[in-house]
């Protein structure tokens, strides 16, 4: 009876879990690299039109995507570029806390050590979306592609929170 109950519970919950995982933005793996737990911060696009948030104060808005990069391989790998359909320009940035003053700077490359991970998070590394093409509202997803030197391009869907 117990076994039967457990089995029927599994029959019900496992497909449900699978559906949940898929809707939350499945993690992706390619070669030694996996992208886990991607999410984007909600952001208003400020009525952005065709400008790129580039140059001289174009009146658009920016956003951020966070994702954990895991490297299961025996060699370090490096993110060399980032892209997204949600923004005109995409960069890798890092925020550092210098005695309570937050300083955000672009980083050209992001290395993930062999057998290691790099966790992007608020107030740390992030994928910076410059010149949002539309609002990022909770419930929507943003697609982000990170290109690694060795593993190539991995695309992940990041739910907006």
């Amino acid at each position, binding site marked *: 009876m117990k076994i039967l109950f457990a089995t029927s519970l599994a029959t019900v919950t496992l497909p449900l879990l699978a559906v949940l995982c898929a809707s939350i933005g499945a993690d992706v793996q390619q070669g030694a690299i996996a992208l886990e737990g991607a999410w984007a911060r909600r952001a208003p696009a400020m009525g952005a039109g065709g400008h790129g948030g580039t*140059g001289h104060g174009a009146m658009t808005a920016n956003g951020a995507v966070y994702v954990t990069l895991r490297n299961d391989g025996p060699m370090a790998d490096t993110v060399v570029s980032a892209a997204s359909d949600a923004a005109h320009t995409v960069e890798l940035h890092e925020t550092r806390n210098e005695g309570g003053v937050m300083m955000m700077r672009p980083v050209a490359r992001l290395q993930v050590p062999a057998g290691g991970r790099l966790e992007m998070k608020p107030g740390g590394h992030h994928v910076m979306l*410059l010149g949002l093409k539309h609002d990022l509202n909770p419930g929507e997803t943003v697609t982000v592609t990170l290109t690694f030197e060795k593993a190539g391009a991995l695309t992940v869907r990041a739910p907006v929170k």
Partner: protein
Amino acid sequence: MSRWLAVSFVVWSVAVASAESPFRGGVLEPPRLAPDFTLRAPDGREVRLSRLRGQVVALTFGYTFCPDVCPTTLAELAQVRARLAGDAKRLRVLFVTVDPERDSLERVRAYTNAFDSTFVGLTGTPERLASVRRAWGVTANKRVISGTSAAYLVDHSAFVYVIDPAGRLRLMFPFGTSIEDMTHDIKLLLGRTP
């Protein structure tokens, strides 16, 4: 004065860890009246800090092109407000721009509204905003950086300053303070049992 304030903040936040305090954030001891200011809100009204007595005010500084730190702070304060439930109306969140050159009233309104429609974004002339930052010991430095397509970035202090219902500056939450801890302290200031 502002230097003294900034230094005392630092000394004091270090002292907090060991102090016997019911609060989890950094406590300003002794409490003193919060430096007053008058700034403009998106509905055109002038908001004077000292007129907000009777409620707890959470004050933070930032800019609408900020994608990482400012949205994090505002999203967390929105969650604190949600946790306060019936007491949420006794918390007033103010977001003061450090980028008046680009942050129009309309931009500030759209930005704070994305997180909580009760949050009030404030701006003023560059001179007035600079004097508010001096009084509060807040740093804001515009940086033109190579390697980014952003026209410029603004390095800025990312504390949440908490003013009690009597208008006294009581707490500072450093960036990264948990939602639970902020809610706990604000409930205490509202006279509730956390």
